[in-house]
């Protein structure tokens, strides 16, 4: 039986950014199991120093090409909290709707383009266009819907233009929202078909007891602001994010890492779901149960399933949000902003997990200190420990190098890492 194995993945594919996996097993025992992050840092926190507040959301949105809307909203929330601005109900609803559409877009991109090829035994989505045209068309339909909605609300699907401190530069037309509402309703069969597809996937059987961190919802499944919670029983205020993330540096990582009650914790769709399951839309809960996902689930590969469940939730919730928006006459899109000395935190659940932006302003509203804690950076240590556990689990089983390599790659992909974002 084969009980030695060498895995060396340089610049893992089908993830955002640059990371390496190294596993070495000799005579059935693990000699090395590593996750390395080699991405170049861009120093956004330094860039902002000395900049007027209005620059912060505009520049910080550029931290990430996938969740630029989430970064922009977290940044805006941090500025608004710093200045004591409370967004209007209309702005709150529109922002959440925009956030939902980013969640849908990002999850569908990950599930179909990045994760599904592994389960279908191909290297990318490209050959699927031939072998599974209905699957690819379905993915494109869902993604197009989400992106069109982002264009209509945020002005642009990537690096949004209308989202500003105080509200929006302009509002969508109501008939545009009505159209999106119709398309959302007709997307439900596509989502259920996606669930059926994932039921056919062989999710690897691997579990490691993990602490899961997310926002805590009170009445709604949480996305923007609120208290911070962990499955190990930690409960904190948004402003206390630093003691929830405890960032540190480590050789082999250009990203910072995080820990809380244990040496590592996880954030993301699975963490949100584990902490807030009863707040999901009933249909999303049903889909979750039908795919074998009930809280608290410790299998990181189930993050894929959790993302799918969230897609169902955000679609149903978006329809309700649009109904609320359509039922009321449009108010002023933007409230005036008065800068003042102070500091503010914005916590937002972006597709890959909880994101924090923090700024400190002088009396002219210029940034004197900035801090951004990224979901993927919070996940890195957990990915590392998962890879170690995975290697141990399979060390003596006689699996081929390529099988272990694929399992490790799929594990990292399940976290949907946004590596350049984590380094920023």
């Amino acid at each position: 039986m084969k009980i030695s194995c060498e895995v060396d993945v340089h610049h893992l594919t089908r993830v955002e950014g640059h990371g390496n996996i190294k596993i070495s097993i000799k005579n059935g025992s693990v000699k090395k199991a590593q996750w390395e992050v080699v991405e170049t840092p861009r120093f956004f926190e330094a860039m902002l120093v000395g900049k007027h507040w209005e620059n912060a959301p505009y520049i910080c949105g550029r931290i990430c090409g996938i969740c630029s809307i989430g970064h922009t909203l977290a940044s805006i929330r941090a500025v608004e909290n710093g200045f004591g601005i409370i967004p209007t109900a209309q702005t709150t609803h529109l922002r959440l709707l925009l956030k939902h559409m980013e969640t849908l877009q990002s999850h569908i991109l990950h599930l179909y383009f990045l994760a599904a090829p592994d389960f279908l035994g191909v290297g990318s989505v490209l050959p699927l266009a031939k072998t599974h045209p209905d699957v690819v068309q379905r993915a494109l339909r869902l993604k197009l819907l989400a992106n069109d909605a982002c264009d209509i609300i945020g002005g642009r699907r990537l690096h949004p233009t209308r989202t500003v401190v105080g509200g929006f530069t302009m509002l969508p037309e109501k008939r545009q929202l009505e159209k999106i509402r119709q398309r959302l309703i007709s997307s439900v069969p596509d989502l259920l078909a996606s669930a059926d597809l994932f039921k056919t996937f062989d999710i690897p059987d691997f579990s490691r007891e993990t602490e899961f961190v997310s926002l805590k919802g009170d009445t709604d499944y949480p996305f923007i602001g609120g208290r911070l919670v962990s499955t190990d029983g930690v409960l904190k205020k948004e402003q206390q994010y630093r003691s929830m993330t405890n960032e540190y540096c480590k050789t082999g990582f250009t990203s910072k890492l995080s820990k809380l009650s244990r040496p590592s914790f996880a954030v993301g769709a699975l963490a949100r779901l584990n902490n807030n399951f009863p707040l999901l839309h009933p249909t999303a809960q049903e889909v979750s149960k039908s795919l074998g996902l009930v809280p608290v689930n410790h299998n990181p590969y189930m993050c894929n399933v959790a993302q799918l469940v969230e897609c169902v939730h955000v679609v149903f919730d978006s329809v309700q949000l649009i109904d609320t928006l359509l039922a009321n006459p449009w108010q002023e899109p933007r409230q005036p902003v008065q800068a003042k000395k102070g500091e503010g935190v914005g916590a937002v659940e972006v597709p890959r997990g909880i994101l924090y932006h923090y700024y400190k302003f002088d009396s002219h509203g210029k940034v004197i200190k900035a801090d951004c804690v990224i979901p993927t950076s919070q996940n890195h240590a957990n990915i590392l420990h998962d890879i170690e556990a995975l290697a141990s689990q399979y060390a003596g089983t006689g699996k081929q190098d390529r099988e272990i390599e694929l399992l490790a790659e799929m594990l990292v992909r399940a976290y949907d890492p946004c590596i350049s974002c984590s380094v920023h």
Partner: protein
Amino acid sequence: MSEPLSYLGVPLTRPKVGFFELSSCEGCQLQILNNEATLLDFLNLVEIVNFREGMTERADTYDIAFVEGSVTRKDEIVRLTDIRKNAKILVALGSCACFGGVNRLKNRFRDLDWVKKEVYGDFPVDTMETHPLEDFVPVDLSIFGCPIKKEEVERIVTDLVVGKMVHHPEYPVCMECKANQNICLFELGEPCLGPVTRAGCDAWCPSNRRGCWGCRGPAEGANLKQLKKIMHTYGFSGETILDRLECFGGFASFSDSVRSQNKKTPAGRKKS
């Protein structure tokens, strides 16, 4: 997906293309996947042989290399030089590749050690001043924007495949904005670089009532002096104008000279 291509009866070869990224948000590559309606047609036009963000297979020979991101670490110079060697045509994809992009904002600080300390404390991190691609290798074609506009990329790639000349508009965003019948943002109290920035985005931001931040760099003959004068008349401060001019690095020759006059490290620590 692989029927023979032809244009006006002339057979065409699908170029092998690769997508690569240096320091960036990878958003421009994502834009390539973001035009769902035309994505499959677009993919039919080329043969993608390298796209780490989207596929596992990789090859080292390609006709066109699209490179996103700027150079901020020495190993990226090596990667870029290798890509240049393997590619017939090298395309700078997006503002980071063309001008340095937002990454260039860290060059405002003369003291790179301060920049590193501000983010990582005493933990050692490797970085250097941010550069656009053209500082190290010849660039054949630039696609401007943060983010790039997918329609423009599709047009440019189609032109490349059929062997047409690729042209960028020489006029400014202001022209497109007027054609879209927008109210001038100056009248709404919003600063805007539309009068000096190269068009081609169809006034993407101003049409959403967000002033232009100059992500596409200067239009031909951009008159910055006159812009400053106009913006001052509308009551915008020098700092407000500079924030926009330096945001994406396209106006670096101008903004760097202004910054160098007051280039400093925060907390009063100046490098000798």
